[in-house]
Each structure stands twice: as C-alpha cells, then as structure tokens.
C-alpha cells in the first residue's frame, strides 16, 4: 500500500459518502414535502367544500 492505494480508497469512500448522503437527503426531503403538501392541500380543499355546503 506504499503506492497510496489505501489512502486513495479512503478519500473516495469519504467523497462518495458526502455526495451520496447529501443527494439522498435532498431527494428524500422532496418526497416527504410533496406528500405533506398533497395532504395539506387536500385538508384545505375539504375544509373549503364543507364551508360552502354550510
């Protein structure tokens, strides 16, 4: 490993972890917010319809 292969592997694992982790977190956040927004909009519309009916 005197040629630096081990150091190289550690560096790439770290970079893959940082970029992969951040991308994963970003995509998961988009999915979570989309679901919450759909639910919130549905509640808002339901409330509006029931107010009209009354």
């Amino acid at each position: 490993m005197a040629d630096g292969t081990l150091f190289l592997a550690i560096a790439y694992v770290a970079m893959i972890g940082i970029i992969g982790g951040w991308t994963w977190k970003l995509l998961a956040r988009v999915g979570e917010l989309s679901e919450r927004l759909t639910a919130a909009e549905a509640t808002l519309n339901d409330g509006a319809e029931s107010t009209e009916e009354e």
Partner: protein
Amino acid sequence: MKRWVLTLGIVLTLLGLLMAAITLWLGFTWAPGVNPDDWKAPEAYRILFWHVPAAWASFQAFTLLFIGSGAWFLKRLEWGWKLHVVGAQLGLVFGLCVIISGPIWGAAEWGTPWDLTDVRLNTYAVLTSLSLFLVMAHEGQTDTEDSRDTFASIGLFGFVLVPLTIVSIRIWQNRHPAPVIGGAENSGLDPQILMVMLLGLVAFQILVAGQVMLRYLVGGLEERLSEIQSKLDKRY
C-alpha cells in the same frame, strides 16, 4: 409544484452522478499511471479525478452564494436569499469533499496531511469553514431581515477568498501542486489524464445544476406548506 423543475433536477442530478461514476471508472482503469520515481505515492494521484472537479463545483456554489447575497443585500430580492442558502449548502458539500480528500492525499504523498505555511490550503479551509458557519447559522437563527443582512454580508465579503484561493498557487506556490490548466510550462497533464479530469469537471457542473434545482424546489415546497398550514391554523 413545478413538475418540470423536479423532473429536470432529478435527471441532471442522476446524469451528473452517472458521469462522475464513469469518470472514476476511467480514472482507475483507462488513465495511465504517473512516473513512480517522481512521486512518493504514485497511485494516490488518481484523487484528482474527483478532487479538482469538487473544488470547481464548490467555486460554482460560492459564486451562487455571492450573487444571492448581493441580490438580497442590495435589492431585498427573495430569490437572492434562496440562492444564498443553496450556495452555502452546496459550497459546504463540495468544500468538505475537497477538504477531506486533499489532506488524505497529502498524508500519502507529503507524509503530512496539512501544511500551515501553504496559502492555498489555508484560504480554502477558511472558505469551507465560512460555508459551514452559514449553514449552521441558517439552521440555528431566527429568520429575520437583520439576520439575513448579516449572513448576506458575510457571503459577499467571504467571496474574496475564491479568487484569492485560485491565484494563490500561482503566486505563493508552496506544497500544493501547481495548476494543471493554464499553469507554467511542463505543469500540464498527460492528454488521457486531462480528458478524464475534464469529464469529471463536466459531471460535477451538471451535478451542481441538478442539486441547485432540487434544493430550490425544496425551498419552494417548504414555503407553500407553511402558507397552507397558516391558512389551516386560522380556519380551525
């Protein structure tokens, strides 16, 4: 939700990741080795296939931070503040890649991870620390006009470190290797190595573009959700 922004953001992010993976594969299998007599850890040079593109990606992010900070500070533009936040986060992500991989290469090649007398290393470390501070401050501080002004001014003045970091290895080169593009004579790279590194540069630029779109979208979704929640709070 603007569907096309989401689709394009995901496509660009995945394309960037795929191209970065191809860069890595070519860097390990196709790019030739360097002369083992000239380097203490010759195989470790392959770090540059992601290290340099990550550094350029971070400069791209810091430029967005600067533009966003200026737009907020001078014109109170909301998109400017969002760009400031996105720039700080991506600057931290890619800055961490550089600040972690660099010292690991340094430990293999120089026998020490850091050299406090090297200007390039120190200015880049301060730049990444600045983005870390901004990201933590955005999370921890109440979002007011005053706090935005403070962070935007830090983003504006901190950007000075970007050109300083870029020119530092041309003016005060010490430990850090000389620039490989537009550097002095004989500082260039083997054409195959250069080709792989340029592919990496394109990959990381596409990745940044995709991630900026996704992060911007997250900001928009959070805002919309907050608006609906306030409406619901008023109603019930």
